[in-house]
């Protein structure tokens, strides 16, 4: 499987403190729009209520992910930066 095929599947899944599944997506070293593309693919595979945790280094992501969250009806739980890595946590809205 080529590297790009691997972009489509999230790296790891664990459970966060609230019990919701947290899926981690490492997008460090990927330029816009690859992080949102990968996130878009990962989100489509998530259960409603699950959380996607994306790590990016591209400065463009700072504005991309809040806009992406609005566009795809996701809840942006947090947007933090540490040592040049931005971390976004997005929750797929649970079905009403």
């Amino acid at each position, binding site marked *: 499987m080529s590297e790009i095929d691997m972009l489509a599947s999230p790296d790891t899944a664990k459970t966060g403190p609230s019990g919701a599944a947290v899926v981690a997506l490492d997008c460090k070293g990927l330029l816009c729009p690859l992080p949102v*593309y990968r996130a878009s693919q990962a989100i489509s595979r998530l259960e409603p209520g699950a959380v996607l945790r994306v790590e990016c280094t591209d400065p463009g992501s700072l504005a991309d992910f809040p806009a992406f969250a609005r566009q795809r009806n996701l809840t942006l739980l947090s947007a933090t930066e540490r040592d040049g890595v931005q971390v976004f946590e997005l929750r797929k809205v649970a079905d009403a």
Partner: protein
Amino acid sequence: MEIIDTAAGSAALGAATEELEVRGVTWRRGRIAGIGPDAARRRYGDVRELIASPANATPLVRLNHVVAPAADAYLKLEWLNPFGSVKDRTARYLLEGMRQRGELDGRELVEATSGNTGIALAALAALEGIPLTVTIPSGVPAEKLVLLRMLGATVMATPDDLCPVDNPRDGAIALARAIVESPAHRGRYVMPNQYANPDNVRAHYETTGPEIWEQTEGLVRTFVAGFGTCGTITGVGRFLKERDSSIRIVAVEPQAGHRLPGLKNLQEARPPAILDRSVIDEVIQVPDVPAYAMTTRLFREEGLIVGPSTGAIAHAIAALDGAASGLTVGISPDGGQKYASFYADLVADEAAGS
């Protein structure tokens, strides 16, 4: 004459086996060595040799019913290239140029394409064992996606609004560029870049243009092609203008928001870097409705199974003043079999009586 027809027998003879010429067939002790390619007999070593060139030109076919009686117009049927479109020429030149510059060594290919370039690149890349990823706008017909995957390409379908802040309106190009430039990929991906690569123009300057000149015996007066990557209009336009600057080069442009794969409206999409507007004498805008109407007429009145961009180009030809245009050649970039899903609406509307 002794012919040993088993592999064991041949091996027993050792490496130095004798070749025998028998009625034009070369036999090697043990098996036929191969009669080799022969273009005059239309016998080819592999499918790449079928990509059009002046030695093997795509046909010009006269339009007899969809243009005025005074017109003398031909379509150049580029879908008779081996992978189905005019882009076979482009892909061959793009890859050959990259190979000569050493850009292919140990790399993988990635390209943004509406389909035909991807198909041609995928076929050539498959023949040469080079991995290819194609980024495509999500609106292309399923037939093209299936073809690409059958040819072994990795396909990433992108919506145009992929980069929500920038909204460059071509998510496929942005994604392809990001794949090439992302530091995490360490330079492993290389993009032929049909919109900016001069080899695209060179393909048409060296093959399509000379073919048209030769096939019309130098009598062509008007050439019509679409704005897409603009390789054809630029390469052929440049070649023909050099032969005779009074030849009229006419570009066909779709309207904004069109559904004519392969064509580009240059107000809503960025004009390709390779476009040379100085060779273009006139731009005719063709909306979807007349393009599809003419496509239907080409099927039914000329027996031409074409893609909708051909309908747009033929509509423009029909709109020209036939007497003033003289001998006119238009490009038919691709065939109609890949567009069943696009044409389904047309025939459904007819059946419904609308």
